[in-house]
């Protein structure tokens, strides 16, 4: 056992830190640290800056732009970007569809899509969930019926994050309704400009528009857009959902947000006094810092032990506790903002600092974190069933 990073890894961390704090456009990092929403253009520029440096998709096979990094190095890469206020590469591209195409797609699909996916020239959306297929994803009903060289797709997807920016959507569709539900699903890539495809916005409770419904009305999709084999889509989806060991717990950004909250609290008391003088708040922050430390150390144990490429069973701990702490810090922000948290709609001319105004929309918005990407109940089920062997 040993705590220190090897010289090589320490140098790597320095290199990453320098890159993220100097090479990502300042306006983007300012937006992240102001806890404002990034524009599409900012997300694209951010990922393209990383791709130009060859570090946008380190988890991909080397021939498609990946890096032969160790899980620890990938962890460091991910932590450093979050600490620097840099948004991680768009997950739909970098950690979802990219690795699936690289692992299961035809050579033609790889050439056609991977470079553009790494550079965010194509913005991907994720079309898995449906109104009646959420946690029970395999019960999805959107159908793809083969007619000659095309699939004809009908149905509805929902919760499609940032689908309003999407160029393409990767979907799970039912290609065989006669077999067990997991066995009849295929993984299909669909051009979002196809006739018959419509995107309808969903407003969330913070007033923002980040999710959408996507409707398919006889959308014709060339057969060559199928990834891998027909009816094997469930395997690819499991690969997609399970292969992400790094970054499931946004420790870096939660640490940064907590440090920022602490700084803000120093003058947020009545008359500009420090709220840190309140022992209850101080204790609450100290406890959060310790919980985050425990989480980060768990993440380090996971990456240090997953060199064989198999997911560490504790990944679910990271997702579960990562979202719990992320939400706790957004809640803390509202407490620190106090009555100023009400001034959400105030614009220029307000005497309430912007960080107080965005506190509650952020808090409300991050209630999502324990719902998507495998809800916290689903994570507990994995821990109970797979790790502890408790299957009723």
């Amino acid at each position: 056992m040993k705590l220190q990073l090897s010289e090589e890894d320490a140098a790597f961390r320095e290199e990453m830190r320098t890159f993220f704090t100097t090479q990502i456009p300042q306006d983007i990092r300012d937006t992240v640290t102001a806890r404002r929403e990034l524009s599409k253009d900012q997300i694209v520029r951010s990922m393209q800056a990383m791709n130009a440096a060859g570090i946008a998709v380190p988890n991909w096979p080397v021939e498609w732009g990946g890096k032969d990094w160790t899980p620890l190095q990938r962890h460091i890469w991910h932590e450093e970007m979050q600490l620097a206020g840099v948004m991680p590469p768009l997950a739909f591209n970098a950690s979802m569809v990219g690795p699936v195409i690289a692992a299961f797609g035809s050579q033609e699909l790889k050439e056609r899509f991977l470079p553009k996916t790494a550079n965010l020239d194509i913005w991907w959306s994720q079309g898995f969930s449906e109104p009646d297929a959420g946690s029970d994803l395999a019960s999805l009903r959107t159908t793809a019926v083969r007619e000659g060289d095309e699939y004809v797709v009908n149905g509805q997807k929902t919760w499609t994050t940032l689908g309003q920016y999407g160029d393409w959507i990767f979907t799970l569709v039912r290609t065989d309704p006669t077999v067990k539900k997991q066995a009849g699903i295929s993984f299909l890539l669909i051009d979002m400009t196809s006739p018959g495809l419509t995107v309808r916005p969903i407003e969330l409770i913070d007033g923002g528009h980040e999710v959408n419904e996507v409707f398919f009305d006889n959308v014709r999709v060339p057969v060559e857009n199928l990834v891998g084999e027909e009816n094997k889509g469930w395997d690819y989806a499991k690969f997609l959902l399970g292969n992400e060991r790094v970054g499931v717990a946004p420790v870096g950004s939660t640490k940064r947000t907590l440090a920022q909250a602490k700084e803000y609290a120093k003058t947020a008391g009545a008359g500009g006094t420090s709220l840190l003088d309140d022992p209850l708040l101080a204790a609450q922050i100290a406890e959060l810092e310790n919980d985050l430390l425990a989480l980060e150390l768990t993440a380090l144990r996971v990456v240090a032990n997953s060199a064989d490429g198999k997911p560490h069973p504790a990944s679910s701990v990271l997702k579960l506790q990562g979202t719990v702490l992320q939400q706790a810090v957004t809640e803390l922000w509202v407490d620190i903002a106090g009555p100023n948290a009400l001034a959400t709609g105030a614009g220029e001319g307000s005497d309430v600092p912007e960080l107080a105004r965005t506190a509650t929309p952020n808090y409300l918005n991050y209630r999502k974190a324990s719902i998507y990407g495998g809800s916290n109940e689903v994570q507990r089920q994995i821990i109970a069933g797979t790790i502890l062997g408790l299957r009723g």
Partner: protein
Amino acid sequence: MDFTLDSEQIALRDAVRGLLGKAYDSSETRRQVTKTDPGWDEKTWQRLAEMGALGLPFAEEDGGFGAGPVEVSIVAEEIGRVIAPEPYVEAVVLAGGLVAAAGTAEQRAEIIGALAEGTLVPAFAHTEPAARYSEKPTVTAAASGDGWTLTGVKEPVLGGARADLLIVSAAVEGGTGLFLVKPDADGLTRTSYATFDGGRAAHIAFASTPATPLGEPGADQSAAIASVIAAAQIAYGHEALGAMATALETTTAYLKTRKQFGVPLMTFQALTFRAADMYVSLELARSTVTWATLVLLDGAAAEDVIEAASRAKLQVSKAGRHIGQEAIQLHGGIGMTAEYSVGHYTSRLTAIDHLLGDGRHHLSALSTSLDDHGVVEPLP
């Protein structure tokens, strides 16, 4: 000792429930109302006035109906059940309460009568950007000639832009005074904006703005303010109880109907136990808030009411967070959407938590008085 409503109180509850249930028959109706200024429905406010709900806590000689905190709590709870955006606690309990507590006989008759009739909606401009929950304002009042002027900024002021009359707290020699400011007063600017719970707040700036003292000119009104705020904290507690009850009912109904894996969600014990815990939170909050109302009804000493209000607000803060967060979580994605109701309940509960002191603020206050008592004794 009796924690139940009498038949007249039940009749009041049913009447208000009937009225508000019709006015806010769905969360979509509420959304339509909160989309346009002033963020609430003037017609519903008029109907509440006609029903007598707006004059409940005030003396008959001031133009009120001589009822008490229990009747106010009944209305507040019904407001919360449908999260009606009408400013009941803000205008009646807070602003009206201050006039009743500090105003001259003439001011009381003039303002409370109009408030009870629904023709005048006052707002209390108290919160300041750098003041947090402090009672000490930085807005200053100066006597000039035979009048007074105010200078400084209040923000966020709930309902501040729609208000027909502002009741403003300001520093006077030796403490905090209260002043009446007309919306068209010189040197007054009001900028309105939406709050996350569908309400409206305002940035209000005073530049040597003419103001009339509420009550005795130049007097320190801190004690009146503290007592009225305590009454409003308790009333907010009831509003939160109503909201929590609906959030729990909505969640329970959803667990019965939403199917995943071919079965209703209520098949999963992990989820039904969480609903049971929400119920536990609600009942504990209900007991504490109701108790605080009875302390107020009993005419207890001001410091006892203030402490009871703190205890109630702390319990409501904990319960509101628990129930609000779980209501969304147990719904899954649908709970996050503006088209569905539970998220709005969670938003409103979050707002109530941070009005007039959040849970930690009250916990801090309570933790400084541990030495005053051996045990906490709820009964006088």
